[in-house]
């Protein structure tokens, strides 16, 4: 399923809404999650999962081609942990 198919499903369920409003709604939800993580916040959606930011420490890396050592800076990466309900649903039956 891709973004446009998700929008279509929600639009079909809500015939009283304009398609372009459904589009804005779906986009707002995903945008808000990214913005929260960009601020370093967590987004916890019970039953679905939680988006959070993990810190990766600075380290000395190596260029695999040349074997040369390179300093890799500390960085922050997005992380998703599946919620219990969804995890259970994936393994039903």
């Amino acid at each position, binding site marked *: 399923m891709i973004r446009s198919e*998700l929008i279509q499903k*929600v639009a079909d369920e809500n015939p009283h809404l304009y398609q372009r409003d459904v589009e804005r*709604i779906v986009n707002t*939800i995903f945008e808000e999650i990214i913005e929260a993580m960009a601020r370093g916040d967590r987004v916890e959606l019970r039953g679905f999962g939680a988006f959070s930011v993990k810190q990766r420490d600075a380290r000395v890396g190596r260029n695999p081609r040349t074997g040369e050592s390179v300093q890799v800076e500390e960085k*922050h990466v997005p992380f998703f942990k599946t919620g219990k309900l969804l*995890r259970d649903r994936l393994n039903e039956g």
Partner: protein
Amino acid sequence: MSDKTLTRMDLSESVFREVGLSRNESAQLVESVLSHVSDALVAGETVKISSFGTFSVRDKSARVGRNPKTGEEVPISPRRVLTFRPSHLMKDRVAKGNKS
């Protein structure tokens, strides 16, 4: 980092501000989006949201695990797990926003 936790309520508040719907209906739409994504994943589909990321379901085979406290071997049954791969855009924005 501000270290806050957002919930469904915060997402529905954003939807409420963005589109002229009631708070109640905004909350229902957030729920509807999450359940359509969940249903697709439970059906074994991959959910690919451009410029956000990709959720995919992977099959893990059975293996023998170990209770780390007692050292006892325990069988782990085959299971399906969900993985999320963030888009480049998300990775870049999260890295930039949290730069110290």
